[in-house]
């Protein structure tokens, strides 16, 4: 009997001891409330499976045999936490509180606001440029906002029109979808001159996504996606004024005002006006280095926030006129000079409505609406282009979860309507027309799975184009957290767009080369795949990070602009053979001192297509590029210094016939540096800035071929690989009254 009792007691004791477990409750704390979290995940580092908290936030977890171990607690929208559990913690009850990402971001990032960062949390590779970074350069228009960034390049495409285009992964800006708050922007007729329609002072932040973007945003992101977040009425300045002037005779002024009308309504107004008044011809070729002209834009936006319904709407107008070409050129042109006259204007109405479900906080429906009317009239000497576009866009997105917040789903419908008219050389013997009406309905779905270490976003969309038929675009993005400090991402996806051969290449009118189109141009389709590594670490006990990325884009079809096949013509045709882009970029950021930031980057671009019978590197695209940016802010926060140096390697140039009839022999560009620097002084509500661009005064010699005979057959202002203007010096001031946070 005694033995039995002993064995029962021993058995019970052993069973209690062997099932070592721990239980507890998980709370989530945000700025408004502290409540239990349903579906928070708890797992040990050496044990693959974990447990989830129940509806009351409670959990029970079995302790692993090998102790001590680390228990990781995570939930969507909260910063994960870890607890080291030891043998002595058996049978204890834990109360764990996780802090909301929103809350902690305010506190943690306040230690030093990162102006440029690569997101650790997002599954796609997203680089964020915040308003702090935008202040480091003059940033008066969007093209200048990328001056301190290594991933996006801004190029001038011809020597006379002042057109600036962005480039990502070595591919022209048209392959990167640009959006303004998730509404497609700067496409169609605005692909070449549109960068000057948004002022840098309107922008709150920029997100640059490499690889095809989410299917929710459309089908046109092939190299990447750039999303511009404009300032919002309740977060923007109550009043903001910026004035800028530079040595070339450019004057600019910007005005922003955000106003809270009542608890539900708020409004923001942003105005921009700039003019180029100087007549500059520093290389003495008889042509204006920069066109004269003026540029005005106005945006008005309104927000309504109710309990079940949210909406935003706004209107934006833009008018830009440029006069370039030979010095002395005016509209009536009495002396028959070669002139470039470009007038672009648009009016754009946008709205977003969001419906929330009170009983189901994780579900919502959002609808985006956009209507746009734009015209572009461009004259290059004797050649002229007229374009008109009417566009309508609706995108309805349903956002929800399946089971718990670790599985999200988005689904929706979109409709694009475009009525485009593009006419070229209408007054000449070989006029070209590209008119079309596009109606593209689409349906899409995206599933996101947040795992313990692996996040996956799988999406697909199907669109039916009235002219080109069905297009299926699948996309996969994944992020694996290798360690707490390292993420590896992988993406593969398909994107496509209908090319606008005239507007996309409008700079090529700055030559007398004839344009030949002998085929029906098909949609451009590409597959983009890539991988990236983001690693944060400490160097000499200071914060540092390293990003490595490698992307490969393979075109299934592409609009080929062939300047090599026939020497005095430009042939537009569909791809035959291979066309691809390999880009490798590495970026190292380091803060050796609390107020000193250094960024170093290197980019390798291998972009090749079948040109003139040979697979060659794209013209005017350097293979190697180096970049360094240094920023310093004084401890009393009154002075800020920033300097950027980019070194561009050699690039291939198309063969040209020079003014004297001979063929160009050296078809390679020079290696050159581009150095920009700015000093900013803050005094209470004022900021004064003084800066310089192209400080080494590097200029491409003779950018215009046969500038003496602009109406002759050899005239060509498109063979541009470097800066045309020399050193630029600018100064300005900003006055802002910020909105104080009221709680």
């Amino acid at each position, binding site marked *: 009997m005694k033995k039995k009792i002993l064995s029962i007691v021993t058995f019970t004791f052993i069973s209690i001891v062997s099932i070592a477990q721990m239980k507890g409750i998980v709370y989530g704390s945000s700025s408004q409330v502290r409540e239990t979290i349903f579906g928070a995940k708890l797992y040990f580092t050496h044990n693959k499976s974990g447990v989830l908290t129940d509806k009351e936030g409670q959990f029970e977890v079995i302790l692993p045999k090998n102790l001590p171990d680390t228990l990781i607690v995570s939930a969507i929208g909260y910063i994960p936490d870890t607890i080291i559990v030891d043998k002595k913690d058996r049978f204890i009850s834990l109360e764990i509180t996780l802090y909301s990402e929103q809350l902690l971001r*305010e*506190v943690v990032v*306040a*230690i030093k606001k990162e102006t440029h960062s690569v997101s650790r949390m997002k599954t796609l590779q997203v680089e964020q440029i915040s308003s702090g970074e935008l202040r480091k350069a003059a940033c008066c228009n969007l093209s200048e906002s990328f001056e301190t960034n290594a991933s996006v390049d801004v190029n001038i495409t011809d020597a006379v029109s002042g057109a600036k285009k962005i480039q990502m992964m070595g591919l022209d800006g048209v392959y990167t979808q640009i959006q303004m708050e998730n509404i497609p922007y700067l496409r169609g007729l605005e692909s070449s001159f549109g960068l000057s329609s948004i002022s840098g002072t309107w922008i709150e932040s920029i997100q640059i996504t490499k690889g095809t973007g989410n299917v929710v945003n459309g089908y046109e992101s092939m190299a990447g996606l750039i999303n511009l977040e404009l300032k919002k009425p309740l977060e923007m300045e109550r009043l903001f004024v910026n004035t800028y002037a530079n040595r070339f005779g450019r004057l600019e002024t910007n005005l922003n005002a955000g106003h809270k009308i009542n608890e539900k309504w708020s409004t923001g107004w942003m105005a921009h006006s700039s003019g180029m008044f100087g007549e500059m011809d520093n290389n003495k070729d008889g042509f204006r280095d920069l066109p004269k002209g003026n540029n005005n834009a106005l945006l008005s936006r309104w927000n309504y926030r109710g309990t079940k319904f949210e909406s935003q709407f706004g209107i934006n107008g833009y008018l830009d006129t440029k006069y370039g070409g030979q010095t002395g050129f005016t509209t009536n042109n009495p002396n028959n000079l070669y002139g470039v006259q470009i007038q672009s204007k648009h009016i754009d109405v946008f709205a977003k409505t969001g419906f929330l479900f009170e009983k189901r906080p994780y579900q919502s429906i959002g609808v985006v609406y956009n209507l746009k009317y734009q015209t572009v009239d461009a004259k290059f000497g004797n050649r002229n282009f007229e374009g008109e576009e009417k566009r309508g866009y609706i995108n309805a997105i349903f956002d929800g979860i399946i089971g718990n917040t670790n599985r999200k789903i988005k689904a929706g419908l979109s409709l694009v309507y475009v009525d485009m008219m593009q006419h070229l050389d209408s007054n000449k013997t070989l006029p070209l027309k590209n008119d079309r009406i596009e109606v593209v309905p689409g349906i899409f779905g995206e599933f996101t799975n947040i795992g313990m270490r692996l996040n996956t976003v799988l999406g697909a969309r199907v669109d039916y184009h009235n002219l080109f038929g069905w297009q299926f675009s699948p996309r996969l993005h994944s992020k694996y957290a290798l360690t707490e400090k390292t993420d590896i991402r992988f993406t593969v996806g398909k994107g496509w767009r209908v090319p606008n051969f005239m507007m996309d290449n409008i700079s090529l009118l700055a030559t007398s080369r004839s344009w030949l189109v002998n085929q029906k141009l098909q949609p451009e389709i590409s597959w983009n795949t890539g991988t990236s590594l983001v690693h944060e670490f400490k160097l000499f006990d200071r914060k540092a990070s390293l990003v490595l990325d490698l992307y490969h884009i393979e075109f299934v079809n592409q609009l080929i602009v062939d300047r090599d096949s026939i020497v005095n013509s430009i042939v537009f045709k569909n791809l035959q053979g291979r066309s691809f882009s390999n880009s490798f970029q590495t970026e190292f950021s380091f803060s050796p001192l609390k107020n000193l930031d250094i960024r170093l980057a290197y980019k390798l671009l291998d972009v090749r297509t079948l040109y003139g019978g040979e697979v060659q590197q794209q013209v005017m695209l350097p293979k190697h590029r180096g970049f360094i940016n240094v920023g310093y802010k*004084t*401890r*009393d*926060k*009154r002075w800020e210094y920033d300097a950027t140096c980019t070194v561009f390697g050699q690039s291939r140039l198309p063969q040209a016939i020079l003014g004297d009839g001979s063929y160009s022999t050296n078809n390679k560009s020079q290696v050159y540096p581009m150095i920009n620097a700015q000093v900013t002084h803050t*005094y*209470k509500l004022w900021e004064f800035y003084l800066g310089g661009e192209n400080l080494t005064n590097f200029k491409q010699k003779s950018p215009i071929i046969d500038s003496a005979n602009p109406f002759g057959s050899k005239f060509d202002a498109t063979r541009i690989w470097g800066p045309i203007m020399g050193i630029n010096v600018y100064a300005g001031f900003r006055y802002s009254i910020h909105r*104080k*946070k*009221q*709680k």
Partner: protein
Amino acid sequence: MKNYITILISILTLSFANAQESKPLRKVETIEIQTSAQCEDCKERIENGLNYTKGVVFAELNDDTKKVTVKYKTSVISAQQIRQKISEIGYSADDVKATEPGLNKLPACCKPGGME
């Protein structure tokens, strides 16, 4: 004689003691002051308020301890004046309490107990 020596010694001792107390301050001093700051907005108010005060070289608030490190020119401003300035902004500085008008200017989240 003994008395005379005693008096001499006491005078010398006293003068040494005085000499220690009136040791001259360096031209630039750095001090740490405990404030009642609670959030990012508070940090901005204190830092901006001090950075534009004559005589302050820089002011930096530590997010964890809520202590502000101030480097200042002793010939222009004194440590007590700095504490007074902080109290005028609406925060307590070491043992100096925040002033009423200063406190009233703060948004709710910055007042004591506002972040809970």
